[in-house]
């Protein structure tokens, strides 16, 4: 593998009081890949991701994202990344277009750029009918598409998606993964967490986190071979058993 490393993490740790949520994790993410960050609920995925996007200070360890240190250059990191939170976090009392305008504006886009970007995103994500509707009136699937489009507004090098498909039906999940693929195809690096093991199959490489530590990291194919099973779900079950 001689690809460029766009994320470089070394012994990254986060403690809350006496509880260690992320235990000295180390890994690299290659430019342009879809990197699956897997783990059960409470494994520490969100906590780790928040350190990578510069909104949570690591207790110890290093992380370099898009060439910038998350501890000392977090504002530079923020220019290069997009983030879609686990919890829907757009303005319910604004329309899709207004949300895009606002976030585009604070990402520093000009009015003209915002106009172009809005039109483009709404077309690509198939949001034409609902573009002028208040976000509160939209079903969850639409909301998640909106969050995704906002995360991509400023054409980031890396986009962090925290459980982007949580709580939606399998068809919408499938559609969402198609969007992820389309974006990855443009060269954007995708860092995605999920606790749906079937989604792991869609990733180039996955790490599996158990209770704050990374227990396995490889392509889905290699992992299945290594654990001698047929699905990622079985890989996960075997891992969980080992830890106990």
């Amino acid at each position, binding site marked *: 593998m001689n690809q460029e490393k766009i994320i470089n993490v070394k012994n990254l740790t986060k403690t809350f009081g006496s509880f260690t949520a992320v235990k000295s994790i180390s890994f690299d993410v290659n430019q342009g890949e879809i990197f699956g960050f897997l783990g059960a609920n409470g494994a520490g995925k969100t906590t780790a991701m*928040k350190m990578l*996007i*510069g*909104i*949570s*200070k690591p207790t110890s360890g290093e992380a370099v994202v898009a060439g910038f240190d998350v501890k000392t250059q*977090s*504002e*530079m990191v*923020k*220019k290069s*990344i997009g*983030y879609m*939170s686990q*919890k*829907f*976090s*757009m*303005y*319910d*009392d*604004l329309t899709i277009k*207004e949300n895009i*305008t*606002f*976030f*585009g*504006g*604070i*990402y*520093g886009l*000009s009015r003209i750029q915002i106009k172009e970007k809005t039109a483009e995103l709404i077309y690509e994500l198939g949001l034409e009918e609902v573009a002028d509707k208040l976000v509160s009136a939209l079903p969850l699937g639409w909301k998640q598409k909106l969050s995704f489009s*906002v995360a991509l507004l400023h054409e980031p090098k890396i986009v962090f998606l925290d459980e982007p498909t949580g709580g939606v039906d399998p068809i919408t999940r499938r559609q969402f993964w198609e969007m992820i693929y389309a974006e990855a195809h443009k060269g954007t690096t995708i860092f995605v967490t999920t606790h749906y093991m079937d989604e792991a199959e869609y990733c180039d490489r996955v790490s599996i986190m158990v209770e704050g530590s990374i227990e396995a990291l490889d392509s889905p194919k290699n992992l299945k071979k290594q654990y001698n099973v047929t699905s990622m779900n079985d890989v996960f079950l075997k891992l969980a058993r080992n830890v106990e």
Partner: protein
Amino acid sequence: MKTILFIIQKEFRQIFRNKAMLPIIFVLPLLQLLILSNAASFEVKNIQFSYIDSDHSAASRKLITNFKASSYFKVIQSFNSKTEANHEMQKGKVDVILEIPNHFERNLIKEKKSSLSVSINAIDGAAAGIENVYITQIITAFNQNIQTNLFQYNEATYVQPQNIVTIPSFWYNNTLNYKTFMVPGILVLLVTMLTLFLSSMNIVREKEMGTLEQINVTPIKKYQFIIGKLFPFWVLGLVILTVGLLIAKLIFNVPILGNIGLIYLFTSVYLFVILGIGLFISNHTETQQQAMFIAWFFTVIFILMSGLFTPIESMPQWAQNVTLFNPIRYFVEIIRMVMLKGATFLDISFQFFIIVLYAFILNGLAVLSYKKVN
């Protein structure tokens, strides 16, 4: 700058989309002014007045007639002894005892000087202060040469001579029109409460919804976010002030003797102080409920110690010192000075300076405590 405009635009969209908001801005001030300025009147009527006349002279009878003629006093009884009178006051039947000593008239004629003693039931301190003012007015009108010795009655301390409490504001409000006196103060309260509550809850709400996190992952600068967030509430504060001033003028006919520009100048700085406090509260709370409780805590203390309902001069010294840190105190002072006394910039420059200093300190603290990184 461009970034800030985007935030302001979004904020105004949300404010005007919120159906509950417009009534809050326009109807609430009206209701509050109407209710509070009528209810919070200091006017004391039907004061139960009694006297001990040990002089039985023409002068003493004339003085008592003057009290009888006043619409504030209801002369209920004459007592023979102080003990008897005190007994009735303790039972709450009597508010005021006027003691006319022996040789009252003789001293007045011979020495051009005489004294009277007045006991006031001071369980309700505010009422006692006002009763004192009325009594002094009647006595002074009767004869300039009489010295009154005031005793305030209190359950805890029996007879304790006290200095006469004067409420300077009355000097500029000769008709003792309490609405004139209260409306500007209540306007202060309104502007303060609405902007403090709306601003502190607004930012916490973004925390609760998770949108603040979404903003924190953008490369936005702290100052951009804060200015963009607070500016709309600053404008709102000035709009509320304007609505309130119009109501004061058109409905209550409160005079605006001074330059109205001074009120706006002071308010525009004052609002920074309040918004700084709001931001500070929202930085240190996680839910709207917490923010609300803390905002309440501060407003209640600030209001009680502002001189709005109880004169600062009648507070104990330590409390008077505390009021020096109270921004509302300065606003109440200023608005009364400018509206009722016609104060100029020079008159209010001290308060203005304090509030500017306050604005810098609080906003500094608020900006420091706003963290994009946890």
